[in-house]
């Protein structure tokens, strides 16, 4: 009884800390929904409708969604394929291949940015969806994640299917993929978050409003004459945060799992 009360007290004690953690976010929401009308202040969604109605923000949001959907989809397919081949396949050159993945994980993205930019420029791909998608379509960390997971599942089911004469493609899609669904969820949600929030590459690889993603559009809107237009800025920030919140509420466990996968646990 006393123990229970003590632990309820713990929750109570922590709540001021939580308040501190959430105060900036609450401030963001407050600035976004407050609409100055003359001297009086009213609450409303005016900032949101301004932003989505006139400017390019709807376009930014759409671009972010399209790019994120493609990158997540391609990773679900390709990273699983590659992870599967690395987990099960026996072939020469596996070690250098694993090394290429390790190298990719260690080298910062900034070092490949200039050549990728020049390559895209030469191929007239600056400001196109493929330029925003292709460099991220097969993520090294995701391959690593899938390989780890697939090594842990027993190969008996695949072998049984093989004995039944199923093709390797069929085995992959109908036997392996259903078994690794939990890992796909981990990979999917984390890839979504990273891509939805990514900034430097899309900043460099786009230069028109028609192709900018939400973080880039928002960051550039926050410069120059709009840099103090807090109401609209916060509305934009909130629009960018809502999908993250939704993903967080639905897949919190998987997000944590993805983070822990990077610690070697």
């Amino acid at each position, binding site marked *: 009884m006393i123990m229970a009360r003590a632990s309820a007290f713990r929750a109570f004690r922590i709540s001021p800390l939580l308040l501190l953690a959430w105060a900036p976010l609450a401030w963001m929401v407050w600035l976004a929904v407050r609409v100055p009308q003359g001297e009086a202040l009213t609450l409303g969604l005016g900032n949101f409708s301004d932003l989505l109605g006139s400017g390019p923000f709807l376009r930014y949001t759409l671009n972010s969604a399209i790019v994120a959907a493609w990158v997540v989809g391609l990773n679900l397919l390709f990273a699983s394929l590659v992870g599967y081949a690395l987990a099960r396949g026996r072939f020469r050159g596996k070690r250098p291949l694993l090394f290429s993945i390790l190298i990719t994980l260690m080298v910062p993205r900034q070092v490949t940015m200039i050549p990728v930019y020049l390559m895209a420029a030469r191929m007239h791909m600056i400001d196109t969806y493929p330029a925003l998608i292709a460099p991220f379509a097969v993520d090294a960390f995701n391959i690593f994640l899938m390989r780890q997971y697939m090594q842990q599942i027993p190969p008996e089911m695949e072998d049984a299917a093989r004995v039944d004469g199923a093709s390797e493609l069929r085995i992959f899609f109908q036997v392996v993929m259903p078994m690794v669904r939990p890992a796909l969820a981990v990979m999917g949600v984390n890839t979504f978050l990273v891509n939805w929030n990514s900034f430097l590459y899309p900043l460099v690889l786009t230069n028109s*409003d028609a192709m900018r993603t939400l973080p880039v559009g928002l960051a550039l809107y926050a410069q120059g004459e709009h840099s*103090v237009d807090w109401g609209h800025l916060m509305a934009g920030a909130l629009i960018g945060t809502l999908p993250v919140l939704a993903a967080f509420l639905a897949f919190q466990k998987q997000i944590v799992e993805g983070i822990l996968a990077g610690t070697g646990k």
Partner: protein
Amino acid sequence: MNRRMWLAAALLLAAGTVSCGGGGGGGGAGGKTTVVFWEFFPAEVIRPIVDKFEATHPGVKVDLQQLTWQGGLEKISASVAAGTAPDLCEIGSTWEAKFASSGALEDWTADVQIMLPRHRLWEAVKFDDRYFGIPWVMGTRALFYNKELFARAGLDSSKAPETWSQVLADSRKIRALGESTYGFGLQSGDRYKLFKKFMSLAWSNGGEILSPDQKRVVFDSPQNLAALKFYLSLRPYALMDRQETLDQGFKEGRIGMQVSGAWLFKTIPHDAPSLRYGVGLVPAPPGGRHASFAGAEILASFKGSRHPREALMLAQFLVAPENAAALCQAAKDVQPSAVGSEDSDYYRQRPMEQIFVRQLETAVAPPNISQWVDMEGAIEEALEEALHDKVTPEQALKNAQRKLEALLAAKGS
């Protein structure tokens, strides 16, 4: 039978669509030339003028694309590098030398001769005695002041302060009004902007950056030192921040004076319709002239354009006084480069906007030299160090002088 009828109907429909589509665009495929034009004004401002061009030039179609100031330079540069530059492009005057020196721009020297006396600021497009573009519209900075704060501080709110000592005294009185009220909005380290504010004062005091023949650096001068000391003397009474924050503070009625741009004529009526404010020339020291920064939007064409003749035609149309005036009146943040514009009805009815056109008469353009962007950076770095008391004003000018000399010597490398 039934299926065949459907097929026929579908074919007919398809044919109809094709022929209709062909009817609209057929002329384009036939005799029309498409000129690709990149520029920075919002579509609603520029589109009507381009429509007028298309109406009067039936053989030419304009493919209009908006650039943004944040990504524009990068986009133009990338397209030049990739060989996909537009036929006609708007270029900021401080970038002009960079493009001209790398040989990327079309030489229009022969074509612009007859226009020379009718427009201002040709030095912005002149490089090695050749003309690589046409000054389209101009921009400058002037002094904005808050009449209400002036009245509250017991100052004359009917006209803007004109001298340095007046500005300093007024700033002090306004600052005394309250903790969140500032006498002056002082530009701090803001790239591409700080030097404009400082040089306005330096030019007013007879200072310069380079000698007229651009062979020597003359930045470390008594005139510039006096200007810097005046700038620094405003600090106790000023809000020191970036341009946008200063503009916001001014609109919220917390800043007595600031030097800013004509974009405020567009944003004040929208953001702060009840603000009572006035405009004056940039203040000058005793015996000085009211100088300011002069920038131009330039129209230029890149080498390798497939339609150089049409690009020039479009440029000449856009800079024609009535078209440039229409653009300036819609955009508000720029002024026409045509000589005599300040006497037009439009500006006579709008005295505050007219001040900007008058300010252009004494405004100075920075040297048109390929290292300018770096020189600008060197000046701003030195000013920032003085603003934050890291070095004395004397030392700041010496530092800038040294860096500018190194940059000038590196010419051609």
